[in-house]
């Protein structure tokens, strides 16, 4: 459920067309992954915070932000 919602949040901001179905978890949100620019990445995180009621912006620190990392973080935070 969480994964599907995150996919939907990301999909609507990706400029180029994506194949239907779930997105690969290892895809980075920016650059050579899904190609989101810095503002779109920020918007994805803000919408995730709003939809799930958990903080996610700390994911911008450290290792590259992938779809899997975002979903995992939201799942863990909402399970607490």
């Amino acid at each position, binding site marked *: 459920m969480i994964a599907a919602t995150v996919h939907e949040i990301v999909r609507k901001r990706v400029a180029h067309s994506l194949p239907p179905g779930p997105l690969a978890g290892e895809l980075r949100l920016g*650059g050579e992954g899904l190609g989101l*620019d810095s503002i779109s990445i920020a918007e994805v*995180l803000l919408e995730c915070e709003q939809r799930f009621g958990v903080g996610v912006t700390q994911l911008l*620190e450290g290792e590259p932000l992938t779809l899997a990392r975002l979903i995992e973080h939201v799942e863990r935070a909402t399970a607490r």
Partner: protein
Amino acid sequence: MIRRLRGRTASLLVRTLGFLTRWPRLAFAIADTLAAATTLVRRGPHHDALRTLFPDLPAAGFAAAIRRIRVNQVRRLLLHGWAERAGVAALQPLVRTNDTVPRLQPPLILATFHVGPLLALTAFAERLDGEVLALRSQTIGSGRAAHVSVGAELESEQQRSAAFLQALARLRRGGFVFMAVDPLQQSGLEVPFLGRTLRLARGAFALSRMTGVPIVPVVAGWNGDEVEVETGEALHGDDERTLAAAAAQWLERYLTQAPGELSHQLLALMEDDGKPQAGGPGPH
């Protein structure tokens, strides 16, 4: 080889004139004389660009603009030298803000461009009445004032996202966000500008769209031996591209009045596709 020699000459000049922080007029007189002399012996890359961008500029205006561009280059080095030697405080006496500062009430996005003495905007930022976050320009936040802070590093996409979120938070808390909108990287909103295309970073315009906070264009320019800060009317709107085009239009009007403020940095950021934009070449 020649470029290295030029670089060494410039740094020697800055070091030498750096001792004259207490006598800025004397330093400017020396710097301006040297700049004018180099204008006579060497054409810069701005020569042809200026002719293309301002085809209607009369000969006297053209010569004055060419001189001004070179003088600005040397003065820019001088200001950096002074700020390194004595801190940004050394620039404060040079900066005139007139009645600009009281009119700027937060929350507000201040958008600047790579024209004129950008470093002088540090002094301007320190006079603002409210918390200021300087973004996309380490220069603007390089002073020591406690109410002016510098946003996150801007090297990677993630760092830029973090900086964007910092700016959003600052605006929502009722502060100022100060940023250069002509980006040094390749992405951004393409807008018509002086018959060419200029790419502006989305940041300021996205912040305005998301918060409803207006954008005020700001640039610093020389008036004699003082720096004057010029601001435009506040730009409102919820469409990023329209806001970006309005900001570029404001800069175009400013440069049409003062073509000598055109900088090498800005020229490098303008895309020369050889094809004039709709509306014809040059200012209109």
